[in-house]
């Protein structure tokens, strides 16, 4: 399952409201809300596909300015048609 660490930028006055809504989504863990309106969250999903769907949903949310990716681990994601390692 791929895991990513993201930063969601909001207008500072709307950050806590957005964070509450984020936390209500399955696959999203809110780890902190910073004073300048940035929310730190971890996304976990069965596939990268599902991860991206979650992130896209966040981008459409009222109060969200942008969603950016800090860390992405996909070591156990099913390699889609991948060639053998080291080939």
């Amino acid at each position: 399952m791929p895991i990513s660490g993201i930063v969601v930028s909001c207008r500072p006055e709307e950050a806590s409201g957005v964070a509450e809504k984020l936390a209500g989504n399955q696959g999203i863990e809110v780890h902190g809300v910073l004073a300048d309106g940035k929310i730190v969250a971890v996304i976990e999903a069965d596939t990268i596909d599902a991860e991206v769907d979650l992130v896209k949903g966040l981008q459409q949310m009222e109060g969200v300015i942008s969603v950016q990716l800090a860390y992405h681990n996909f070591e156990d994601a099913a390699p889609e048609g991948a060639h053998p390692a080291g080939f």
Partner: protein
Amino acid sequence: MGLSRRDFIKACAAAAAFAAAGASVARPEWAEAAEDGITWGKAPCRYCGVGCSVLVGVKGGRIVSTKGDPAGPVNKGLNCIKGYFLSKALYGKDRLTTPLIRKGNRMVEASWDEALDLIAAQYKKAIAEHGPDSVALYGSGQWTIQEGYVASKLMKGGIGTNNLEPNARLCMASAVVAFMNTFGSDEPMGCYDDLDLGDTYVLWGANMAEAHPVLFSRLIDNKLKHPKVKLIDIATRRTRTTKMADEFIAIKPHGDLAALNAIIHVILRDKLYDEAFVAKHVSFKRGKENAPYGLKDKEAFNETPADVKNLSFEEYKALMKPYTPQWAQKVSGIPAAKIEELARVYGDKSRKVNSLWTMGVNQHSRGVWVNNLIYNLHLLTGKICKPGENPLSLTGQPSACGTAREVGTFAHRLPADMVVMNEAHRKKAAGIWGVPAEKIPAKVGLHTVEMFRAIDRGELKCIWIQCTNPFQSLPNLNRVRKAAQSRKAFIVVSDIYPTRSTELADVVLPSASWVEKEGVFGNTERRTQQWFKMVNAPGKSKEDVWQLIEFAKRMGHGALFPYPEKGMHRAIFEEYRKFTLGTGKDLAPYGTYAKVRGLRWPVKANGTETRWRYTEADDEHVAKGEGIKFYKAPNNKVSVWFRPYEPPAEVPDRNYPFWFCTGRLLEHWHTGTMTGRVPELRRAVSQATVELHPEDAKRLGIRNRDQVRITSRRGSIVLTAEIGGRGTPERGSVFTTFFDEKKLVNEICIDAFDPLSKEPDFKKCAVKIQKA
């Protein structure tokens, strides 16, 4: 302690995000365990021209993780959503892994020797029968610096033709010409720091939130911290950028040419200019007018020194008199009062004003002129070469600057701002290359549009395409696809996936991509970034540099490339670097780039970078006490050009009543060969849609998701209507993207181009819209 590996990884993810968000949260020691066995290397992102730094994690020969690079000054630990697809872009199911040769309608697997021998035989035959100008190489702003350099040396110094072009002709050529004819040197005086330091940002037709999201985030961070910061979005379409702007100003397609002239008119009329700056730094010029649109084959248009008239400031002011705000209101759709207001924004001495633009201005049948007019605003008001106060031309591809522009892989260019038409430049290049000066032809080669038209005319016999997809991305696509289908030329395509171009090739070659090879990219802000190879390319894939040098050997030009197998990339770069030293485009030794997260040229003698060019405060080429010195311009004076209004090549009429505009969305990139390949990305916006204004849609009886037929004089396609989605064009305009390989949107586009830059106008043609 009962923690699983998943918990470790999640802790790593959170810690990285906290750090990137600027919070000082200590990374738990046990998080290290999650990264056990992963080797990290740095690389610039593969996708756009912003040039974000990425840390790539490799385990067992595969990429297993990526991070925004915390040490990367561009993106400071964060990537945009395209970061999700970076490494997977290399692992698609249908990756090309072996050379293929056409046998009738079939592509048959071949060895490298068979493929390269065949290519060399075809090139030799064409050259023997028709001369070196009957062959060409078409490359890319996604080429590494080494790839572009080897290509240029081979074509110009070896084969002896200037028929070398990058796809950057389609996106950046207008910017290049304007940099050259205004400042005498390509690429910006400012840098991304201006996004953090300024207080006023005027966007000319640029949807930064989607096309340059990391830079837009920097701008928005500045805005949220400083209430004075103002963002003005001037565009033909409401976008995600508009949502964050303080003001949206709707403008008609091609209206920029009128609005900019009227803003200048007001600046002159109300004496909002900086008289001392103008007197010291500016010369006024008038160029060649009544320019054509390139619609006829071989239509020649140039602005030679004999065509340029020098003007006094008074003469220039007199010429600008007719361009009143009232006149511009009619042409641009911007109310006269708003034009007056914009002039006062640019003229406000208490504001640090920046202009930002990209394809809206460049892909324009008068793109050079619009670039010139934006520079005029900054040169008249003296708002240039100062921290937080600059014009910034944004680029689209990761090395459009580094490779296409700095190495000079255009039909008229040589490295470091030199051109083939100049004898001294040819001599310098020949000296470094170790070839006789007469080897490099003075005749400019075929520019991109003409190169592909020459296939149709039967004049170009062989073309090799690397790292780009012209048979999807060219305008008036039907003509060039038909020419290729009727096998009028021998076509070679090197790429990593099957594309709409490989399907037309006689030989397909499998390439290595991104961290499957070593390379250097140069980004929008003059930052040169190096990376090492981290994983092997699949199957028999080989990097483009290797392909070109093996071909060169078969063509009898192997001696031009005497690089050792180990250290080849370093040797190529060091040779290229000789072109840059002492020119104001100075690069650092290769070893330096291996250590740092890029440096912005000119690199100083002490090895540090230059953030702002032409100013004594930062640029070593300007002596203390000189203040600002435009040392690359003739007599150290930059040019303010009088550029009149001239109409677009095609305008909506009774039969074709709508404007048609093409562009890019956040999740898609160019023709989609790397982003469209990734299933997740394809799902996000699974196919090209056409955006309509709700009132236009209602009038035509079109509802959201209806099928809509779009027809121009050149072609017809059916797309799904999108109404009230991510973007809304102004009334009378429709918008679509060009990434979808199943919908060849460019069959609609006109092949009109800017007469000076030869860059096509993908943003404007006339279409009719019907419910399908």
